[in-house]
Structure formats: C-alpha cells, structure tokens
C-alpha cells in the first residue's frame, strides 16, 4: 500500500500540467449551455484533441494516449486545478465510449470514436422518458424493425446536451412481447438532425437550455448503429450506468480543486471565530480527500481486474452530496455576494460558485436518484431483502 508515483507517472503529470498551463483559455469560456458557449467548448475539445488530451485512456488509434486509469486521475487533477473549461464531450467520452469499448463492433469504434475525440460529433444521452426516470425499465419509446434497420418512435426527455448536440444514444423497446420489462430493449445511436426528430430545449433551474426533450416520429436508424444485440439493451445500458455513477463522470480532481479553492476563499474572507463555517470548510476538504483516496483504491481494484458494480452507487451518492455541500459552503462564505447569479458582473470568481451550485443541485437527481442508489447499496452491498420502493 503506497501513495507514491513512479517517475514515469510523475512525468505524465508534469506534461499535462505544462500543456494545460500553455493552452487553457485565460478567460473562462461562455457557459456551454448557450449556443455561443457550446461552439466555444467544441473548439476547446478540438484543441484538447490536438494535444491528445481529450480521451487519455483510449488507444492511440482512436486519438487517445493509451494511458492507465491512474494517469487519467492525475490528468483530471491537473485539468481541474488549471481551471480548464467544462467538457462538452462528456456524455460521449464518459458514457458512450466505455459502452462501445465493451459492446461495440470494430466498425463502430473506428467510425464513432475519432469524431468524438475531436469534438466533431458531440453526443447527448437519451435515456429518460416522461414516465421512465428512476424506473428506467418502464420506458415506452419503441424501435420497430424495418428494412435494414429500425424506426424509432416516442418521447425522450431530460436529455443532457441535446439542445445543441449532434447525435444521441439511448434505449428503446424493440420486443414488446418480452416477459419482463427489462427484456426486449435495444441500445441505439441516432442522429439528432435526422428526419422525424424534434428537439425542444428545456431550461434548467437557471433558465439555460441544459437539456431537451426529443419527439421521435419514425426516425430511421441503420443496423450499424445498434450497440450489442437487439433485445439485449438493458445489459448494455447497465454497463453505461455503472460508468455514469462511478468514476468517469465525476473524477476526484474536480472536487479536490474546488475544495482547495474553498479553503483559499475561507482564508481570504472568513471570520476565524465562525467555527461553524470553518467546520463546513474542513468537511469539504475531508470529503474531497476521502473521495480522491477512494478513487485511487478503486482504480487499483479495477486495474487488478475488479468491476465497479454496485460500488458505483456509493461513489455517486458521495460525490453528488459533497458537491452540493461544497458549493453551499462557498456561497455562505460569500455572504450577501453569494446570491449573485453567475451572469452578474460582480459575481465572485467569475460566477463559478453560483454556476457550480446550480450544476451540483442536479447531482442527487440524475444518473439514478440517490434514493435508488441507496436501495442498490442496501440490497447489493449489504444484502438486505428487496421490498417495496
């Protein structure tokens, strides 16, 4: 058991730090939840790709560096410490790509991944439906067999990034007579500009169109865009869900960097006699450090052949609640200035605390609510009996 880096890992970290220092935009990019910001972030993805930093763990053939998971953690620490822009490609890189590596064909990998790495194709996820959120197996949108492919029909919603993205991936009911709701689903990729797709942006809590609902009327998807076997979509999707809840969505670098900034804010602004606030700052540092060390241990376990499994549910609840606590503490530290929206010219720290708070509030809701995660933890990690939800 040790925390020391090899010279080669330390060199990788230095290389990432140097590149980021030379390339991270001096001014924050506009919010990626606006058309202007989305375009700017797409440009940043191209820049990252040019430096081969957009998907560091991928094989070099697809634009990656073939880096270890540990190096990915190190890269992410440097990335957030450098205050580099948010990743507009995250749905693709963190959710779709791992699924393709596990279930995709060689042709799909070669076609989809390089365009994803360069930012040429930005992906949205299309899982939820008006009647199927936490109970994802209740989804009703369908894929109907047709010559050479499938016709998608139905209504998807809360589709992150879909307001401006190029393509989407999601689950559809393809075999309606299946014995259980989890069976007879198919995992597909489709074009958001295809005939029959209507995208209606939905404003999030702060009004920005962070997600959208999708209306699908006989949208054609060729067989080449089915991931895994038709009818086996649930199994394919669950590997993506593990990725979504686990490490790849929220790397510890994000929280260690934010906790470090919070501590700096406390030192600069706080009344040392306010021990209640001090304790919350300390708890944010402790939580970020715990998450970071748990990630190192998790990476070691994965590297030695383990799978995230239900442990991803622990991770998801922990980071989502840490994220909110951390940002709420910062806003409380800022006092009256804490209410300024990110767009206010006088918003502290370019509005990043306010923006971060809005973003964090979604954490316990998406990627499977924390209530569902706690059920999974209790049933699969503690072995408690299943019961009514």
């Amino acid at each position, binding site marked *: 058991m040790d925390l020391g880096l090899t010279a080669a890992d330390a060199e990788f970290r230095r290389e990432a730090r140097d590149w980021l220092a030379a390339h991270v935009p001096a001014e924050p990019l506009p919010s990626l939840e606006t058309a202007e910001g989305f375009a700017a972030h797409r440009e940043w993805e191209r820049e990252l790709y040019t430096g081969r930093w957009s998907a560091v763990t991928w094989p070099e053939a697809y634009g990656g560096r073939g880096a270890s998971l540990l190096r990915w953690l190190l890269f992410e*620490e440097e990335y957030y410490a450098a205050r580099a822009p948010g990743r507009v490609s995250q749905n693709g890189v963190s959710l779709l790509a791992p699924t393709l590596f596990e279930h995709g064909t060689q042709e799909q990998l070669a076609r989809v991944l390089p365009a994803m790495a360069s930012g040429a194709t930005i992906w949205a996820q299309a899982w939820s439906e008006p009647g199927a959120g936490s109970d994802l197996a209740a989804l009703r949108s369908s894929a109907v067999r047709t010559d050479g492919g499938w016709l998608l029909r139905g209504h998807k919603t809360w589709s992150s990034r879909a307001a401006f993205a190029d393509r989407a991936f999601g689950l559809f009911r393809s075999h309606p007579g299946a014995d259980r709701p989890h069976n007879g689903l198919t995992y597909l990729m489709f074009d958001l500009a295809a005939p029959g797709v209507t995208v209606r942006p939905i404003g999030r809590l702060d009004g920005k169109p962070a997600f959208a609902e999708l209306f699908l009327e006989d949208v054609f998807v060729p067989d080449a865009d089915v991931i895994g076997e038709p009818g086996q979509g649930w199994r394919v999707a669950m590997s993506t869900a593990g990725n979504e809840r686990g490490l790849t969505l929220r790397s510890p670098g994000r929280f260690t*960097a934010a906790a470090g900034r919070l501590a700096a804010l406390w030192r600069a602004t706080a009344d040392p006699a306010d021990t209640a606030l001090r304790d919350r700052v300390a708890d944010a540092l402790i939580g970020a450090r715990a998450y970071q060390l748990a990630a190192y241990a998790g990476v070691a376990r994965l590297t030695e052949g383990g799978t995230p499994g239900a442990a991803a549910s622990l991770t998801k609840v922990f980071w989502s609640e840490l994220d909110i606590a951390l940002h709420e503490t910062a806003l409380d530290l800022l006092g009256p200035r804490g209410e300024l929206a990110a767009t206010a010219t006088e918003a502290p720290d370019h509005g990043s605390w306010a923006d971060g708070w809005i973003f964090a509030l979604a954490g316990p809701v998406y990627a499977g609510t924390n209530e569902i995660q706690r059920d999974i933890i209790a049933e699969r990690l503690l072995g408690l009996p299943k019961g009514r939800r």
Partner: protein
Amino acid sequence: MRFLLDAEQAEFGRTLGRLLAAADVPAAVRAWGTGDSAPGHAVWRRLAGTGVFGLAVPEKHGGAGFLPVELTLSFVELGRYAVPGPAVETAAAAVLLERLGDADGGLAGTWLPAIAAGDAMVSYADLAHGPYALDAATADVTFLVDGDTLRACDGCGPVQPSVDPARRLTRCAGGAVLASGPAVWAAAAQAADTARLLTAAQALGVGRRLLDDTVAYVKQRTQFGVAVGSFQAVKHRLADVLLALEFAEPLVYGAAVEWAGALQADTANHGYGATGAGIGVAMAKVAAGEAAYTAARAALQLHGALGYTDELGLSLWIRRARALRGAWGTPAECRARVLAGPAPAGPQIFHE
C-alpha cells in the same frame, strides 16, 4: 502507486480477527469495567503473540520494524472486537520513546523491547490533548507529557467513570522527570498523531462491527409480517452508514501511509510538521469518528428497545463509539487542524 492492502496485510487482519473472535472479548470488556483486568490481560497476551505491538517498535528494540499500515489495520480489528486496555496509548508511547532515542537515560532501551513483546501495558497522557490517562491503575507505567516535560507518573487519582465502563480514566500526578526540552515537545507531537490515527482506526472497526450486527439483526427481525430490513427507511439509513465507513476507510489508510513517510522524513531532518501528515491524520479522525457515531446511532435506532439495553453486546460498541469521538482530538480540534495547513503532500495535491 498501489493504494490497496496487499494479500499479506489482508491475511494478517483476518488472522487477528479470527483470534479475537475466539477470545470472548465481550466478557473481558465487562470484567475490565469492574476492575478485573485478568481476562483483558489474557486477550492482550494473545494479541501480543501475533506481534501487534511489535509493529510500533523498530527492529533494534525487538519489534517488527515500524509498520504503520499493519499497525493501523490491527487497530481496526481491535475496534471491531472492542478490545479493552490502553492499546492506543501503548503504541503512542512506543513512538514517543523511540523518537526520544537512547539519550534520555535509556528509556527506549528499557521499555520498547517490553512493549514489543507484549510484556508492558503502557498508559500515556498528554495534557495538551486531555487531562485523563486511560487505565493508568492497570498499566505497568504511565507516561505523562506536560508541555516539554516527560514524567513517569507515580500516582493517580480516583477513577472518573467514562461513558464506556471499560475505559477507566484518571488524572495523574507528576512523578520523576524523565526528559525535558524541545525534543520532548517534538516527540510528543508525533506520539499524539500516532494516538489520533490509531483511535481513528479503532473507531472505523467499531463502526464496521455496529453495521454488521445491525444488518444481521434487520434481516431476521420482522414487523408487519416482513423483515424490517426490507423497509426503504431502514435500507437508506444503513446505506448512509456504509457510505460514511467506506469513505472514512481510505482516509485512515491514507493517513497511515503519509504518517509513515513523515516520520521517515523527520529522521532525515526534514521536519515532521512540514509534511502535512498531521492533517491527513486529523481528517481520518474526523471521518472515522463521525462514521462510527453514525453507525452507533443507526444501530441503536434499528435495534429498537433491545439496542437500549446493557445486556445486548451492542452496548459495548455504542459506548465505545462515543468515547473514541472525543479521545485524542475532538472533531472541532481536528477540523481546525485540517485548516491549519499545510495540505497533504504526495501525488495528491490540493491546489490553491
């Protein structure tokens, strides 16, 4: 970097666990609380036979060499089985004496081999961290640090009962001065971090035990015709306990790794205080203390009135969880330490 226990370490923990499971520790705890230390001494001797105390003692004094990760995982097991006695204090005293070296009248040469062999039960108090010594009347010797002065106590006051009857607390009066000066102050700081870390490890073990026992209970206890463990409110409460424990554990082991490095750095005159290891230890103490306490509250609530009885063994761990929370650094002291800087070193960086 490989931040996981290796197979040998994990097996050592399992061996200790099996030994303690077979030793009827609860009976020893209850006897200890009434002043009968014989069964507790028997447990202590069995523990010593596995080499636990030698993990805090360098080879030249008969120990296994200083092995903080193994020491830490041992103390998780001590917590899991609620072992009574000044085990934390004995290990902390070993670090104190080893740091002071042989310059001060051969203290290290006298006591460290006895500690390593399990022949010496040592109590230790540092007035900077609390007025009471644990089990001073039972221990073979009680060391007392007051500022930069180290004494061997020659008398202690009446037992001040703890919320955990197996923790027998007394105020100790100063005896012969064994050493004084800045070296004592520096060694005491490292001993206090030792005690803090091992207290955190014990708390983690206490919390694990409380969770295990409670999970077993809610699976078999029925109400409304079903196991209470099938109720979502029960599941969510236990999920929160597991969350707290799972994220305290890497802090505890991470602190052990850093602390080992810091002690080595100090030997090389880099300065223990500059390494940030004390911050990692403080983080571990806060997280493990909170996790154990969360586990205790949940265990009591989910056992219902049965959990509120002294007869059920659960009470040993519930009371221990409360006692360990304040020992060797209250949550408030540890949180203040976290913000006192510097941040932990190593591959992990808190950028500011």
